């Protein structure tokens, strides 16, 4: 049998289905995408090769840079606001024990279970300038209460809050699992040695969580760059293109403006940025480990 497995024909035939699938479902579309990025394809009719024109256009496309900036802001928001809070929440929940632990774990994770469409509409109503919850709260505190939270100027911050709030549960759950995997013996030993809660958190929990943090932060940055559905439903990038994000901008160019060629060139840049971001993050964490 072992000899049969070392026969090249056998190996080839066993690997073939996977390879064929990979080839036609992943590799060919990616290559086509790169190719179309060099054309002015509109989705209908013939595509003509226009070299680097799409990429040159991108350099001057203000909306592209706004969407890149917004995606960057979201990534920063995830790493600097969402994740520190998620770790703290995970530690607190872990310390609760008993029924409260299960209850709060559930409550924090709830937004992730609800469909994105509902989340978007929920927040649309909360933010509404005419009858929204938030404006009514402002009124209670004596404000005029007609602030258009999703309007020009405040929109991007309102959208960021929703996104950070929405993704919070995932981050927290992964950290919580990470904390659960830390051997309790270590905490006992530290307590005997006289370490207080803060010291135990900083010197035991955090260092042992490093691999979890690495994975979580990488996932967060990628998901920030990929963010699409919530924004699409909440503002669709508006007003104007103030709250445009990369994936949504790509979608809009390809499927609303029907500039498939340009949409594909954005997707190529998009993939490159994602790969670069992952690499940079890996380097940062590796240096720390060393």
């Amino acid at each position, binding site marked *: 049998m072992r*000899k049969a497995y070392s026969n090249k*024909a*056998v190996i080839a035939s066993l690997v073939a289905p996977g390879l064929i699938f990979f080839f036609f479902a992943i590799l060919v579309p990616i290559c086509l995408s790169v190719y179309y990025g060099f054309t002015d394809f509109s989705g209908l009719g013939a595509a003509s090769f226009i070299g680097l024109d799409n990429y040159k256009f991108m350099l001057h496309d203000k909306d592209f840079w706004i969407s890149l900036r917004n995606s960057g802001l979201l990534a920063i928001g995830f790493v600097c606001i969402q994740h520190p809070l998620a770790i703290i929440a995970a530690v607190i929940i872990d310390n609760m024990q008993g029924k409260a632990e299960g209850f709060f774990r559930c409550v924090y994770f709830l937004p992730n279970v609800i469909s994105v469409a509902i989340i978007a509409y929920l927040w649309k109503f909360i933010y509404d300038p005419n009858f929204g919850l938030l404006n009514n709260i402002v009124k209670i505190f004596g404000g005029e209460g007609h602030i258009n939270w999703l*309007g*020009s100027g405040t929109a991007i911050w309102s959208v960021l809050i929703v996104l950070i709030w929405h993704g919070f549960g995932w981050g927290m759950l992964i950290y919580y699992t990470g904390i659960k995997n830390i051997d309790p013996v270590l905490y006992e030993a530290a307590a005997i040695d006289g370490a207080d809660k803060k010291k135990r958190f900083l010197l035991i929990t955090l260092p042992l969580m490093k691999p979890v943090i690495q994975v979580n932060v990488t996932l967060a940055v990628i998901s920030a760059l990929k963010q699409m559905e919530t924004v699409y439903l909440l503002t669709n990038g508006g007003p*104007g293109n103030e709250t445009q994000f990369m994936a949504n901008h790509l979608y809009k160019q390809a*499927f*609303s*403006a029907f500039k498939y060629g340009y949409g594909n060139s954005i997707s190529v840049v998009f993939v490159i940025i994602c790969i670069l971001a992952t690499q940079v993050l890996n380097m940062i964490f590796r240096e720390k480990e060393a």
Partner: protein
Amino acid sequence: MKKALALALVSAMTLSLVGCGAKTTTTETATTDTAVEATTTENTDSTEAADASTGEPVTLQVFSNLPDRKTGQGLVEQTLFDDYMKENPNVTIEVETLDDEAYKTKFKAYAAGSQMPDLVSVWGQPGFIDEVMDAGLLTELNQDDYKDYGFIQGSLDGFSKDGKLYGLARNTDVMCFYYNQKMFDDNGWTVPTTYDELLALADKINAAGLIPVAMDGGDKWPLDIYVTDLMEKLDGSGVFAKTHDAIANADFSDPSFTKAVDILKDSAKRGLFQKGFETTDYGTAQNLFINAQSAMFYMGSWDMSMAANEDIPAEVRDNIRVFTMPSVEGGKATAANITAWNGGGYSVTESAAHKEEAIKLLNYMFRPEGWTKLAWENGVCMSAQDFSQFATGKETEPQKQFMEIVANATDLSRTPLGDMGSSEFKTVCEDKIQEAAIDKISTQEFYDAIAETCK
């Protein structure tokens, strides 16, 4: 032995692969078989009469932009399909539906393939149909078939190219202000006849703590229509030709363009629309009006079914009335100049598997007692055909008003600004008019941006 084992493994694997493939090929041949059958029936029955009599089973694929099959236009469409199937038992109609934007995306995907559905929804507006007609995707229709169908003068222009007809218009859309008659009466407000009166009225309504006009600025396209509406009032006629030329020459320097956007900006600044209108979507804007939070609602005649909608509180429902854009100071137009167009419609595709049958279905739908009658009787919309013969006397007030508005109209604006150019033009036009309306960019910047996409 080992060789035999290897051989067995390889052949097993290949067989399983072939097995997977074989299944699909059989189904493929099955479908081509039916396709072949269908074409042969078509070939043998080149005359229409024979086609029906043979009774060969035919499955028509319809791709429609009306996903709601239980109310409104979707219901009318489905009713017609059901009736057709009853009358032609050999025909099965399979309907696939998607919302406008998703529809357009999938339409392109279908267009890229070799076979499109037989009957498809189309928009008789340059932004959509020009490209489709140029690509030769639609079948030419015989214009003589429709001589007695009562299509309103000019309603098929958008579906024609070089004197050839490629589709039929489904309805006539008129842009208007819906208003709450009771609210007007209770407060002693009157319907404005000039734009200045409208703005003065808005001040009064704001002072009463209500919203003057509920505007769907989040979807952006109503703002573009508002600009066309104002231009129609400024120019009186020729807005379509003027916009068409402006796009062709990438030159929007004509003063009416500038003035229309200026008026929109001033109106928004003065509080004609609700706070945050630029982020209010269709449903929310409509709800403001339905819940009597706003006195008026700027929308098209397709929403006239509000007056028959049981879900709307009777106090509002029974008091819905309409008026068209009031005349603008210095404008050349009268009340007979309205912003109206024939947008949606249907075409039979060039690559349709059952072209003859699809055209038969299309003609069946648009015989005067078809779409026109059903749509009017159900208060759904005004068709692009003469619907006055179907007046029942039970029309809702808005229906009667629309009938009068259309009957008295001497000039129609035709396609609104956003739908006049390419898809890219539309996207930019919508983004920028929203920014202009909230005074984030100047009128000049708006026109510079859209002119850029025309080059």
